């Protein structure tokens, strides 16, 4: 049996609407207009223990709603959701004991006391035995570099520091599943890397199942073995990054620096985009022409300085995917 089982999950929200302007506010005062938004429109998937899954989709696609249902915060309208054999919103207290949650835009730390005090409170809330708590805390402090931060009041931490503390706070009770809702939002490059490395580490070393939503495609590329794409409340794609790349576009990019002016290239399956200073960018389909073939044919007649082969940037793949599904 999978660790997380979701079947035909549905959730609608009522949204108040009115046009701007004073007259319209008067009208809305007398008569409210609401529209129903289908946040989730029949979502189904399974997750096995130890997976690291990226859950992506544009803003408003239903990512956070799914996370909130799986973590027992929201009650869905209909459908099935079982996490470790429990129904999150019915058996909330038993359920939340075994999961950890980080909402990138919220905070769970007590604002005006040092981080360590918040940790101590969580220890008692989750009834973590003292020995285990000390051990886990020390490990987390070590691997997230929190030595100095633990003694600082939360209000004086930077965003990156706070996020590292949030991650530690959500793992003190050694959950088997970790839900991360935009954990890297607003972080600088260094903090992002630290957070990423850490997520990878706990997934590998402790076998914690991680479900991650993000808009940062580098997060996805660096971390996730599996991607689920959601749009308009439905799962549109579910697979590995490679599968999704191939599904959207198998295209590769070869950038070549020539010694002299680049020649014009006209091979089947190759599109050339001219760059500056003797540089040429070739978009090619590896199933029509292989990379070795292409470079051999070019070097046969031209002297080159350097070349690089890349995948289509992940951002671009995702943008094309959103475009293709019209979400």
């Amino acid at each position: 049996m999978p660790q997380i089982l979701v079947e035909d999950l549905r959730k609608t929200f009522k949204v108040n609407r009115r046009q701007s302007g004073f007259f319209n506010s008067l009208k809305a005062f007398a008569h409210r207009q609401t529209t129903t938004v289908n946040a989730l429109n029949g979502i189904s998937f399974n997750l096995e223990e130890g997976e690291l899954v990226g859950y992506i989709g544009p803003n408003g696609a239903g990512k956070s709603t799914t996370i909130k249902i799986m973590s027992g915060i929201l009650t869905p309208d209909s459908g099935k959701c079982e996490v470790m054999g429990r129904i999150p919103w019915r058996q909330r207290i038993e359920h939340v004991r075994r999961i950890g949650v980080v909402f990138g835009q919220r905070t769970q730390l007590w604002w005006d006391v040092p981080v360590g005090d918040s940790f101590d409170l969580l220890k008692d809330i989750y009834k973590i035995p003292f020995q285990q708590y000390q051990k886990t805390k020390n490990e987390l402090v070590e691997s997230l570099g929190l030595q100095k931060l633990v003694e600082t009041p939360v209000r004086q931490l930077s965003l990156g520091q706070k996020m590292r503390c949030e991650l530690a706070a959500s793992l003190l009770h050694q959950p088997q599943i970790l839900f991360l809702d935009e954990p890297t939002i607003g972080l600088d490059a260094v903090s992002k890397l630290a957070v990423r490395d850490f997520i990878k580490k706990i997934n590998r070393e402790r076998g914690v199942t991680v479900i991650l939503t993000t808009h940062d495609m580098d997060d996805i590329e660096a971390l996730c073995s599996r991607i689920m794409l959601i749009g308009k409340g439905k799962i549109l794609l579910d697979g590995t990054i490679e599968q999704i790349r191939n599904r959207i576009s198998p295209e590769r990019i070869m950038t070549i620096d020539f010694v002299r002016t680049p020649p014009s290239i006209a091979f089947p399956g190759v599109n050339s985009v001219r760059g500056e200073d003797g540089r040429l960018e070739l978009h090619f389909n590896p199933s029509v022409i292989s990379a070795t073939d292409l470079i051999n044919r070019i070097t046969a007649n031209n002297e080159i300085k350097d070349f690089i082969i890349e995948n289509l940037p992940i951002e671009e793949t995702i943008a094309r995917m959103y475009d293709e599904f019209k979400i």
Partner: protein
Amino acid sequence: MKAYFSILKLRFAVQLQYRAAAAAGLFTQFFFGFVRVMVFHAFYLFNTTIQPMSLEQTVTYTWLGQMVFRTLPLGGDSEVLGLIRSGNFAYELCRPLNLYFFWYCRLISKVAVSLILNGLPLLFIVCFLPQSYGLIAPSTASSVVSFSVSLVGALLLGCAVANIISISTLWTLSGDGVQRLLPALVMIFSGNIVPLAFFPEWAQPALRYLPFSGLMDIPFRLYLGTLPPAQVFTLLTLQLTCAGVFIGLGLWLLSSATKRAVVQGG
């Protein structure tokens, strides 16, 4: 249980960080108490009829009121209101605790902290005031016991009311309306402004059976020993029943609120 105790500890630590606030609170309580005491002195000086309480009793009642002032349910828990408005409420539901008692305990700890940081120092200060300006000692040993029991009852009741206000914010989002209306009711009908005994005879039964009398009036009259012994048990039961009813109502409201709660945005 340990979790709830731990919240108490943390909240105490938080309050201790704000020394200026504690000092200011103490000064305010003392100042307004003193103004009221002076008003009662003037009132009794020119008084020609028999009043329901003696001057000393009224002054004592006033000081006791100032000591427990911060425990009155004048609004919801500001911390919880903040959580609801900011959406950090989502995390509250991720804790393996009964949310109602989690919040209730936060209130209890807030109230306990204010009793320790405001009430006790004020008690210490008024002990040094000259006679008829300060506190008179409780009448008998049994009045100390019944006062202590009903003081705990008052805290339980007050927090149950305040918790309902916090919970109502899940519907209204701002809570401002209730926050303005309630203090007026609480301050008048608990006896905080004028002891309930001074209200007209015809209003007495209603005042007694309103839940607000349990917040101050009942414990203070037990302290002064002005209640007929036969009524002590009835009033204590009434007070604790009120607390029970408000807790029950709060539990029900919160469970129906969480079923329909929406954490907006992101």
